[in-house]
């Protein structure tokens, strides 16, 4: 009995083994026997016996010498930068742009754009001195199409700027003119010559513009992975189940109520799948960018905006539509780190280059200026990391280490010394005590006195350990922020002659600044608020629990902000600051906040002087008290910026042991606590 059982058991076993071996065992066995010694690269490219005897592909001397004629590139129907743009006109001070005045009535938008270009540093009124002649063809509505301008010259050095796709037939040959238009097709786009613009909706804000939608860095859990465009123009979110989606990306699955979003709504998903018709897709692309939804473009036939300078691989995924399923699988597998970086980049790009018409136009001009500059153009890093090339001027430097923004990326540190810039305004008294206090700091490299006063320069100054330079400035307040070539350190301590600081306050503030080189570090603060009663912004210097500005009468900041203040702010704003000197603080704070998107930093300030301090850096006459600042000022500046860049902070940075119940001997910045 037992033997039978055993026998049948063995029989069954052997039979099944045989079957297995015969049927599936072959392949399994092959897999399971890797240790069989195999040639390293099976059937690879052979190692020839006589490989060493082979001849080189080019024999020395074979190269043709003295070719009959220096070959020239054929000037076909196509242009490139070298052959169709004459940079010799742009030698002097970079890009100068002349804008053709519009013939006939112009729309409000057109007028505003003109005004914005005229306010910029690129503009010139003379067509002869201009290096670039700009032909605006903006008005889609009016239907009036521009005709051939006078200075046309076969379109040489001309840029035809079309914000919206042309609705009128071309009335003249473009010739050698560059074209900046929205989402040009890949085939018509001349790389390195034309400029690809974003496809702006008609109601795009002129300046300022809505900020990106991303309110937090990481994803909220439960956000849909993918948003798909809808035929009616909205977005629809899809879950992670792609099996319902056929190849064309449209999911048969019924979206169900509530999942379809209206046109105005921006997609709320991690990835936005964009394909389809050019203008439609380009518009969607911009929407996705604003929403912080990573655009996934399927074989776009159009050029991505500003692709010459923007590295779109950091913010979008351009994939082949034929590999859709694989793309979708790859999206699902994408690491959180990669998603995080892509999303943040969409927001940065939106905010830096696309959120307003003004930014788009300035970016266009900046792209062309970079071509003219050649080696002194913006490095790619400046274009592709915050705060962006519009706010990081390549005229300041082309080395990222010189800017306050890229120290982390470069692995560098700001310089360990600072220059004190003391502005002597109305009082006309040489600030001897202040000079002594500042010169006492171990970090002080030099002291500059900006004598902006009717009185003659005093002949004698105190002896200091550091070099002291006196600049006989003009009488304008905005001179305080002029990029003097004598300032050689990264950090500037901006002071008013009437400020009073102690050496240890200066020391501590500078050490703090080194941790935050892109921000302003100040002692005295004020804050802005929305004034319901007047329907505008207001600001106050009263002590509150938060602040959004530091007074520049005693503040550390990077010297780059002088360049930015002088060269990037519209002329009108600088004039405003000159006319109303209290404004200069506000303006500088606006500027830095617009760049950093962060609040300034406050450090402790000696107690008894705080009461005496609220003096304003006045103009030639003793300035008004800060308690009564001109509310117009902040509103005018906010209007010029197009938005309110100021951010509030609720903290102050103190020394680690500040006012702690420990022995004074242990503390490094003792005098900060003295009553």
């Amino acid at each position, binding site marked *: 009995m037992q*033997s039978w059982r055993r026998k049948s058991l063995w029989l069954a076993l052997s039979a099944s083994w*045989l079957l297995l*071996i015969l049927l599936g065992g072959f392949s399994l*066995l092959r897999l*399971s026997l890797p240790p069989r010694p195999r040639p390293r*690269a*099976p059937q690879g490219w*052979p190692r*020839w*016996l*006589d*490989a060493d005897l*082979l001849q*080189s592909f*080019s024999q*020395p001397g074979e190269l*043709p010498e003295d070719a009959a004629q220096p*070959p020239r*590139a054929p000037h*076909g129907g196509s242009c490139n930068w*070298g052959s169709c743009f004459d*940079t010799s006109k742009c030698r002097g001070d970079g890009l100068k742009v002349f804008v053709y005045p519009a013939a006939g009535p112009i729309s409000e938008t057109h007028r505003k754009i003109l005004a914005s270009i005229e306010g910029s540093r690129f503009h010139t009124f003379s067509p002869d001195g201009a290096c670039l002649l700009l032909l605006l063809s903006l008005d889609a509505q009016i239907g009036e199409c521009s005709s051939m301008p006078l200075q046309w010259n076969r379109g040489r050095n001309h840029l035809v700027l079309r914000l919206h796709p042309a609705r009128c037939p071309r009335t003249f040959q473009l010739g050698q003119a560059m074209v900046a238009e929205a989402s040009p097709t*890949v085939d018509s786009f001349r790389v390195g010559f034309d400029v690809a613009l974003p496809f702006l909706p008609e109601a795009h804000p002129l300046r300022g513009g809505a900020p990106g939608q991303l*309110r*937090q*860095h*990481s994803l909220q859990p439960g956000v849909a992975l993918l948003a798909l465009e809808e035929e009616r123009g909205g977005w629809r979110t899809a879950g992670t189940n792609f099996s319902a989606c056929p190849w064309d990306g449209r999911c048969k699955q019924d979206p169900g109520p509530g999942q379809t979003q209206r046109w105005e709504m921006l997609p709320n998903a991690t990835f936005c799948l964009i394909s389809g018709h050019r203008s439609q897709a380009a518009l969607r692309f911009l929407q996705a960018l604003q929403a912080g939804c990573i655009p996934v473009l399927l074989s776009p036939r159009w050029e991505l905006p500003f692709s010459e300078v923007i590295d779109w691989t950091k913010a979008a995924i*351009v*994939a*082949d539509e034929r*590999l859709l399923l*694989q793309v979708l699988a*790859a999206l699902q597998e994408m690491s959180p*780190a990669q998603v995080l*970086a892509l999303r943040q980049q969409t927001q*940065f790009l939106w905010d830096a280059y696309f959120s307003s018409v003004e930014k788009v136009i300035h970016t266009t001009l900046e792209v062309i200026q970079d071509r003219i500059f*050649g080696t002194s153009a913006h490095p790619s890093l400046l274009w592709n990391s915050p705060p962006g090339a519009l706010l990081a001027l390549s005229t300041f*430097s082309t*080395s990222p280490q010189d800017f306050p923004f890229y120290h*982390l*990326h470069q*692995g*560098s540190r700001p310089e360990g010394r600072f220059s004190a810039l003391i502005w002597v305004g109305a009082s006309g008294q040489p600030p001897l005590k202040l000079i002594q206090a500042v010169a006492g700091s171990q970090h002080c490299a030099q002291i500059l006195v900006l004598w902006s006063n009717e009185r003659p320069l005093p002949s004698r100054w105190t002896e200091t350990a550091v070099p002291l330079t006196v600049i006989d400035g003009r009488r304008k307040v905005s001179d305080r922020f002029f990029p003097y070539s004598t300032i050689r350190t990264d950090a500037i301590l901006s002071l008013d002659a009437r400020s009073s600081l102690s050496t240890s306050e200066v020391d*501590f503030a500078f*050490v703090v600044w080194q941790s935050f080189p892109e921000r302003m570090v100040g002692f005295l603060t004020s804050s802005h608020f929305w004034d319901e009663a007047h329907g505008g912004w207001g600001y106050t210097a009263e*002590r509150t*629990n938060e602040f959004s500005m530091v007074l520049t009468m005693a503040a550390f900041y990077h010297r780059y902000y002088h360049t930015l203040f002088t060269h990037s702010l519209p002329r009108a704003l600088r004039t405003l600051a000159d006319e109303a000197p209290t404004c200069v603080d506000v303006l500088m704070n606006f500027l830095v906040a617009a760049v950093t998107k962060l*609040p300034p930093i*406050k450090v402790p300030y000696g107690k008894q002087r705080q009461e005496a301090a609220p003096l304003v850096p006045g103009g030639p006459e003793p300035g008004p008290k800060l308690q009564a600042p001109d509310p117009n000022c902040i509103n005018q500046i906010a209007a010029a910026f197009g938005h309110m860049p100021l951010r509030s*902070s609720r*903290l*102050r*940075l*103190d*020394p*680690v*042991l*500040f006012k702690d119940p420990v022995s004074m001997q*242990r503390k*490094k910045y003792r005098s900060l606590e003295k009553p």
Partner: protein
Amino acid sequence: MNEAISLRSSSFARLPGKTLQRCPDSSCPAGGAAPAAPACAVRLVSDAPEPGRLPGAGCWLPWTRSWRWRLAIRRDQTRAEVPRAPRHEPVTERGAEREAAVAEECEEEAVCVIMCASVKYNIRGPALIPRMKTKHRIYYITLFSIVLLGLIATGMFQFWPHSIESSNEWNVEKRSVRDVPVVRLPADSPIPERGDLSCRMHTCFDVYRCGFNPKNKIKVYIYALKKYVDDFGVPVSNTISREYNELLTAISDSDYYTDDINRACLFVPSIDVLNQNTLRIKETAQALAQLSRWDRGTNHLLFNMLPGGPPDYNTALDVPRDRALLAGGGFSTWTYRQGYDVSIPVYSPLSAEVDLPEKGPGPRRYFLLSSQVGLHPEYREDVEALQVKHGESVLVLDKCTNLSEGVLSVRKRCHKHQVFDYPQVLQEATFCVVLRGARLGQAVLSDVLQAGCVPVVIADSYILPFSEVLDWKRASVVVPEEKMSDVYSILQSIPQRQIEEMQRQARWFWEAYFQSIKAIALATLQIINDRIYPYAAISYEEWNDPPAVKWGSVSNPLFLPLIPPQSQGFTAIVLTYDRVESLFRVITEVSKVPSLSKLLVVWNNQNKNPPEDSLWPKIRVPLKVVRTAENKLSNRFFPYDEIETEAVLAIDDDIIMLTSDELQFGYEVWREFPDRLVGYPGRLHLWDHEMNKWKYESEWTNEVSMVLTGAAFYHKYFNYLYTYKMPGDIKNWVDAHMNCEDIAMNFLVANVTGKAVIKVTPRKKFKCPECTAIDGLSLDQTHMVERSECINKFASVFGTMPLKVVEHRADPVLYKDDFPEKLKSFPNIGSL
């Protein structure tokens, strides 16, 4: 030891979870001749309890008593191995695969085992097992011989063709290039169309061939080498050149290579078209067209470095090639198909011959050097005019006319009668002119880069090598031909620092992408690969940043300057073991903080259940208890799905001394610094000069470099980093030592963001949160020693000391100011 093993091995059949698996090959007598065959070793694998395993998939071999018995008597030679079960192995879709693998392995084992058994039966059987009937024995022997025969047959079938192939290949490898198969091309065989200038990846490239590739790597096939002759037996081209052979070898050795033509995505013909001058154009085209997968050239890649021929010198290969991709060395904007073709360098054979050691950046003897021979007279006039104008700082070299015999003229250049060694002379110049010749692409570019000389490229419309990915602005100066007379002033306007940067960059480009044919081939394939799998593409930084920059650079994962909205609030995570009373107090305290949005208790005690729901304090926010599988410190930093906010407050279950104002203020500070650790008790690391190592410091110092995570705010993303991206074995080390998880977190965050911590609020008397024992100075000291050890260990794992020391802490704006307390936002701060 032996006893334990015997216990296990004798009881394994009764353990439901254990399966007998391995009998190593060596222990299986193949033919049955070895009478004293060593017994099969047994490995017990305890992976059976996994729910993902199907019982049917494992090998449940119905062993009988005799088996166990046999094993038992041979236990002195038995080796038992009990691997540790993986801790939290999730059941994934890969489970099925694993099962298949296991099953497969089992089969093999089982066969072995059967064979062992048969041996036993035959030789030692009579002595050890009850005698069987002869009939049965014969039966079994027949059976097993059938099995054996089957196996042998399988083996023959499987391996016979392979062995033939490999021996064949051996012959192939010993072959000469001269005896390859000859293919005769009839004069009227088809010729491909000329290249289509409008080709793009999405129109001319068949991407379906590259689909379904888990590694995101394209597969490249190389056609076998053949010799093509025309009707008259005259060869179509020279034999393969040394460089092309190297190039194909490099591809063949790379990860891209496949020998299966059906799985290939890209095809590389072995027809050498590197130099157009050596080719018969029409016949070469015919040869291309008859390749087995040619299909109008779709997905074929041709490498060409010297295109065109006299008199007009086209800038792309003249061989009609239809849709084939061209990796060409002299493209102009007119012939280059953006995003389809790849622009490659013209390889300079000198790269391999001459070893130029890297020369540091800095001013060099000559400012500008022209070293090319055979310049067009017009250009030569121009550069000589430069020399006349600027004197000593410009050097114009030409070939030597009066060299004695035996001197390699390629390696010499002359200026008047002065002889210079080439390419060594390039190292003497800051800028080197790379002028166009008859062709746009010049091999001198490679020499110039190798010498760390900044190339001044004067060749209108030339597409620089790998311009799709390389940022040439960083390594070269491009000057239009008509501006040649201004070259000097253009170059002089470049600041010295930028020049040094460019010199470094030039050398790096050469090292990475020009140095060898292999580098050129791999970069080309990488570019094409990146187009096909853009989501796995190499970034701009990886292509362009030299290693030194990559090493020093920090890319903050939270680089966007954002202040998260206050409304979001934070999630408090309390790690607890069993101090319920203290835990409840912490919960009550923390729940008073206005911005708290959720409370998560991580219950790290497996032996004890958390208190019942009714016993927990009633708080206004959701409270959730997570039970962990193991008592590990890392559990505190796990990115639980329950964390819905960005901000996380990690708090120990004994931190009851923090006031609600202090916690709320801490959250406000975190909002302003969302990429940092914001914590309460601060610590410092110091360099101990006597011991020559790092030291941990908890005294009252003026500096801070760490905060304890016993009470700290941070971004949730760092939880993800801690759990999944912690370098080295730090995580296991921390769990094993039950210490220093906070130091590890400080290292991690500082390393990835490059920023310092923020300590908030004045020093408080914490009940020594990091001390395990309260009393005893010596205990305290061992604690400090341990912590110091941690710092040294982590610093060595990170390879650097990422911690940043700062001298500041964050206080409310009006902290300790002379201001009415009731008007302050955070009055209750700093009380002891």
